[in-house]
């Protein structure tokens, strides 16, 4: 009954294997907490309905007349916001593991240091892809369409998932820094609301006060939204149509994602190494 431990495993293989096991764990958990999916989708669906049918009528899209233009404009904003909120799933999940002592248990195992967070991020990414799918169906129902072919639409979805991936590392850092799941839930979201409202997600930037326009156009969330609108062929008005964000929306979105990952992934792993429950 003795089991020999392999003496040496190459570190990259080990990191991948550990991340895989932890991702498996996350995926096992999702179907057992169906309320998570309900809460993750109810908020964006409410936003779609509110903006499409209530506020949208009061928000003209410069250069794109007609009631349907706003719904086409809106959906990329909703997608990006939904992916940004991935922060909460990582932060709440990791804070919960911390408070239950599971992080201690994992840290006492001969695991790769990145394993727990990477597994969480991968698992949550799959979950968010599922949420994304629901939101796409929701968009179809309110009249949103893509116009540049399936290939470009697929590229837009890839950018959205890359953005979710980046934001999950932010969530991981928050989750490992706060004491409880309750704090993590609000700490993970409270700064996201102003960030999404100060973007092009719901209101076209030309409609904003001129002082806020550059802030909104360079906002990372705006860059994701603009890249999606560009790829989907949806209305995408800019206050400064000659600026870099308007000219190179896809590049700017990729730069933002890379920057977020490069800053937050090492910070999160470092936090994990010193994370303590007490």
């Amino acid at each position, binding site marked *: 009954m003795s089991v020999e*431990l392999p003496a040496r495993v190459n570190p990259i293989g080990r990191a991948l*294997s550990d991340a895989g096991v932890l991702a498996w764990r996350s995926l096992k958990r999702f179907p057992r907490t169906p309320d998570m999916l309900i809460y993750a989708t109810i908020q964006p669906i409410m936003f779609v309905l509110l903006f499409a049918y209530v506020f949208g009528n009061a928000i003209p899209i410069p250069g794109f007349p007609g009631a349907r233009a706003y719904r086409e404009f809106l959906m990329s904003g909703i997608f990006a916001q939904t992916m940004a909120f991935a922060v909460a799933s990582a932060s709440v999940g990791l804070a919960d593991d911390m408070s239950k002592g599971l992080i*201690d*248990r994992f840290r006492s*195992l001969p*695991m790769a240091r990145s394993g727990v967070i990477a597994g969480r991020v991968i698992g949550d990414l799959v979950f968010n892809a599922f949420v994304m799918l629901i939101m796409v169906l929701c968009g179809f129902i309110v009249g949103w369409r893509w116009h540049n072919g399936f290939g470009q639409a697929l590229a837009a979805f890839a950018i959205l998932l890359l953005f979710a991936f980046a934001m999950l590392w932010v969530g991981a850092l928050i989750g490992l820094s706060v004491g409880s799941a309750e704090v993590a839930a609000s700490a993970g979201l409270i700064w996201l609301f102003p960030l999404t409202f100060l973007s092009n997600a719901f209101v076209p930037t030309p409609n904003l006060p001129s002082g806020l326009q550059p802030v909104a156009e360079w906002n990372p969330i705006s860059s994701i939204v603009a890249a999606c609108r560009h790829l989907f062929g949806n209305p995408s008005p800019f206050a400064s149509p000659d600026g870099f964000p308007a000219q190179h929306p896809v590049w700017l979105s990729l730069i933002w994602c890379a920057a977020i990952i490069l800053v937050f992934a090492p910070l999160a792993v470092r936090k994990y190494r010193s994370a303590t429950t007490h």
Partner: protein
Amino acid sequence: MAAIEATGLVKTFKGRKTAVKALDGIDLDVPEGTVLGLLGPNGAGKTTAVRVLTTLLKPDAGTARVLGHDVVKEADTVRSLVGLSGQYAAVDELLTGRENLWMFGRLYRLSSRQAKQRAEELLATFDLTEAADRTLKTYSGGMRRRLDLAGSLIAHPKVLFLDEPTTGLDPRSRLDLWQIIRDRVREGVTILLTTQYLEEADELADSIAVVDHGSVIARGTADELKAKVGGERIEVVVHDQGDTVRALELLTDALGIADPEATTIEEHTRRITVPAPGGSSALVDVIRTLDAAAIRIADIGLRRPTLDDVFLTLTGHEAEEKESL
């Protein structure tokens, strides 16, 4: 060879205004195949010591080795050699028992097949096979603790750290867990066990280190520690309240007690206690003496000092005193 040795461990936690010295120069030495009980109230530094020894915390000063490997410099090696089971049953509530053990097995670098096989072995050993496919939400406290302990045994660790393994368990589950721990000892596993149950240290540990305010204030076997408090005592409850003072005088003479401080008398409960250096033979003397003087005895017994008495004597405060803080 010492399986666990620690020298001068210091760990300070800095808060916003105050710094708490959780470890203040702890020295430990646990020979291979023995059980050390780390005994102390909440906040004494027991858990911090375990966290340093299992590589979860870096000490501010001092060194520690487990099976000859430095816990800071060779942390990864130490992690693959030890098992840790904590007071907060660190298992995933949404996974089943079988899934939890498989996951831990994989993280200990077993292949999927090996991890499955090891999970089955442990489920059988810990009497959890029937509950193996239920999520842990449905487990009782004792079952969770058993599964947690099973998780720490996956890689057949030579050294096991158990941080308050039975805190909060009902007496039946506690006895079950004690048996499981004894079985590991029989297999030659070295165990460091923290507990605030004095009875538990007495029951399981070969030697005991009493910890208070981050340092070891006494060490020895349970018997040695009890001897420090002053051996066995006889407690007599006399039938008539008027007899208590006379009974004490007679017993002081009969047993040749030189120090009146060593005796106690409680008039309202009619209870007197006297030291009994001879153990049960002194008990016979006491009964004879009181019988000869026609003093009726309501109750009498030989009382061995508990580790609670030890703690009170060593620290000047009750072991439980700090729990409410």
